[in-house]
């Protein structure tokens, strides 16, 4: 991830990440379709969608609601810069939280009952997945002895060996980041009656396209975390990230949506029982 031309690498990743993310979404739709015995859209469909959205009229409920989304995307890109330039992993997580909060505030600002509901649920989701993120960051620090992603990447042994429980807790919350069942509480790829489109209900046109692009970045960053767990070996790491993604698709197609109570409880439970316990054991093993 970091080689002789760090700045060039970062720029390359910044351009590449949304394409990779969009492609992953396209593949996901194809696989999901096949699982449901449908043909499914072409793999490039997400890009067509975004291009079409770009040309659509921008409807709003409140005039300032779109500004929050612009900053949501800006901070997601900021996070991506930090991530790909190998900065402090906790800072990456904090920056990601800041970005998410702009999305939530945008949904609040839209002042519609469905986006309001989505915002509330998004907050509960954030509270659910945040511990697993920070536990992952701390676990990597404990094993690799550095908070810097560039050091974590170059750590010579796979971190998953030290952090199996943490990895499990992280994969558990990934569905939430990808907005997939059973944790697609705040918005989801498909409209649902009780939620409509949740957070994104009142966003349209270009702004909705921005949300989609931010989501692509988010997918790549999240899978990047999985990559870090295996960073010792590039092939294994890429395979692990892809397998994690396939696993999420499989779960999405086999589970119904949970209520928020169950989502929060189960996420915290795994974060505590697998993640935190892993950290404590690791602390005493490493001395």
């Amino acid at each position, binding site marked *: 991830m970091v080689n002789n031309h760090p700045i060039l690498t970062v720029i390359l990743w910044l351009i590449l990440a949304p394409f990779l993310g969009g492609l992953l979404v396209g593949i996901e739709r194809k696989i999901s379709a096949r699982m449901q015995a449908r043909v499914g859209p072409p793999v490039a469909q997400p890009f067509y969608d975004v291009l079409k959205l770009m040309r659509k009229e921008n409807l709003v409920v409140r005039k300032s609601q779109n500004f929050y989304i612009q900053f949501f995307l800006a901070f997601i890109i900021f996070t991506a810069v930090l991530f790909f330039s190998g900065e402090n992993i906790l800072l990456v997580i904090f920056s990601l939280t800041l970005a998410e909060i702009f999305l939530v505030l945008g949904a609040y600002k839209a002042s519609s009952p469905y986006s309001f509901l989505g915002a509330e649920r998004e907050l509960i989701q954030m509270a659910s997945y945040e511990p697993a993120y920070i*536990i992952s960051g701390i676990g990597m620090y404990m094993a690799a002895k550095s908070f810097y992603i560039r050091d974590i990447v170059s750590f010579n042994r796979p971190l998953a060996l030290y952090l199996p429980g943490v990895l499990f807790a992280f994969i558990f919350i990934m569905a939430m980041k990808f907005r997939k069942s059973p944790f697609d509480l705040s918005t989801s790829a498909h409209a649902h009656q009780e939620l409509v489109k949740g957070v994104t209900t009142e966003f349209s046109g270009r702004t909705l396209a921005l949300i989609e692009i931010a989501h692509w970045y988010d997918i790549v960053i999240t899978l990047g975390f999985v990559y870090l767990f295996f960073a010792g070996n590039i092939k294994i790491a890429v395979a692990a990230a892809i397998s994690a993604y396939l696993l999420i698709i499989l779960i999405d197609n086999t589970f119904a949506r949970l209520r928020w109570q169950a989502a929060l409880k189960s996420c915290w439970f795994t974060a505590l029982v697998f993640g935190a316990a892993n950290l404590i054991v690791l602390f005493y093993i490493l001395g």
Partner: protein
Amino acid sequence: MFLLSFLIIFPAVSAVILLLVRSDSLRNIIVKSSSFMLFGGSLVLLGKNYTWSVQSFKVYSYPADKAIFYIALLLAGYIFYTGIRYKRPFTVILILLQAAFLSWFEFFYGRRNPTEYSLFMDDLSVMMAMVVGVIGGLICFYSLGHMKELYEKSDKAVKDNRHFFFFVIFIFLSAMYGVVFSNNLQWLYFFWEITTVCSFLLIGYDRTPQARNNAFRALEINLLGGLFFLFAIIYLYFSCGITDLDKLMNSPKITVMAPVAMILFAGLIKSAQLPFTSWLVGAMVAPVPASALLHASTMVKAGTYLMLRMAVILEHTAVGYFLALVGAVTFVACALIAASERQAKRVLAYSTVSNLGMIVLCAGVGTYEAMWAAMLLIIFHAVAKSLLFLSVGVVEQKMGVLDIEYMSGMILRMPRTAIMLQAGMAGMFLAPFGMLIGKWATLRALVDYNPALAIFVIFGSSITVFYWVKWMGKLITVERPYANLEGGIALSEWMPLYGLAVLSVGISLFFPLICSIFIEPYLMEIYGRTVRLSYDNILIMSLMLGVALLFPFSFIKYGRGVRVTGAYLGGANAASPTEFRSRGLSVKNMQMKNYYLEGYFGEKKIYRLSILICAALIILMLGVSWSTIILF
């Protein structure tokens, strides 16, 4: 030396003058000029600190000692009298015990006084004094307008008690300076008890039965803490011959653990940690400026200040671990309760206790990294929380509500106040603002010490995000057209708000400077090493802050390139954008309500359990300190 005495005595003199002055304009002049003097004093102090580092001062203390003893007895007499008058048996018992022990001790101590230095200042006390001077000054400024409006709105039959309010506030400021500059433990104890009495008087300011009841509860709980403090002083004197704070800090752990645990107990009560939280929540009946000053930014910090003084003794001791756990449990439990509260002041109260818990946690850990985090947290929290309190005070006066559910559309009704509130909230939890930097530092310190403690911080902060953002969201949600209510707020009220907001953003930007002025020298002094900030992280934080501060500029494009429509309401929209036709074509109004999750996190659910846990931890802490000291 002169400066320290000045900072302690000057506010007390102003207080006495303010007690006698009844005219509004004269009071304005005195309060404003005194606030400026405190600012100035703080600045001079900062300059002196830069050149001096640690200073201890011999004071020919015999007359001062005697004066303090007799004033203490006088105060005890006053509390005894009020206790009898309002039939509060606990107050009476506690004050009698304190007075008895104090007199008995004076009988021995008064003759042979081993105190070497009565006053001292180092970077920690200067930092605290800066917080008291700057924030205290701004709050005094704000109080003028606020108390005037409060009086004018109240029933005119109620006696105008403002002279008394300002008297107590300035006495309190004087006592706070006393707390942070005293090296003589008995002086420290004296000033400590004065802050308790000030808090009691301010909570009971309204003279309603509820205010009186809460005031006495705060008094009784804090007197219990004071009693333990006194025990610690007596123990230290008789068993180790120590009467100085600096000597206590440099004593061998094994000899002073028992009195240190008692001092920690007093500190826990002052900082309203579980199981003693109820007094602080009850204290919210006090006028808003008093809450902002005493119960958010300064007095409750005195508890953590004292605990941080003990921190160096606590590293890797059982007592330290138990203290850290009390803080950790308080942090999580109070964050959960705050998430379920919908009354603004109660949210602020619980969030204060919760954040103080994090500082207590750092004190219990006691490593140099934890100390670094704790000092940052104290500054950031003081600024952001006082800003929040003052803004809520404005909201209360103009809208007459404290219920967060009624704060929707605030951004249209009171735009400037809403922005202040949001600045304060961002300062409380959001990257790259204040408290988050502190939280980050705390996490680091805990991971290096014992990650089990970090788990509490991780879960507590994710709840913290939840309760702040949903409040922020409520402020910007617009349900219908509103009228602007911000007229008639005096400049003297706006200025402290602006000042604190600028300060809140400013310290987030310049925190490396704060580190190098106060924190790093202090750590070098005590631990011989310090935390070095890495340059790239500072750069990233400033960049992030820069981008976040661009947000207001996006409003230049306000309303351009968009078409406004009604929200989707799940039915045909009716005439107004907030009404829709539901089944049977009846017109219904839409409503948006925040989640409060009382059934999951509510006070009832969490409170009793966490009180039991913390009480057990504190008993263990006191018990362990008496037996052997187990080194982990």
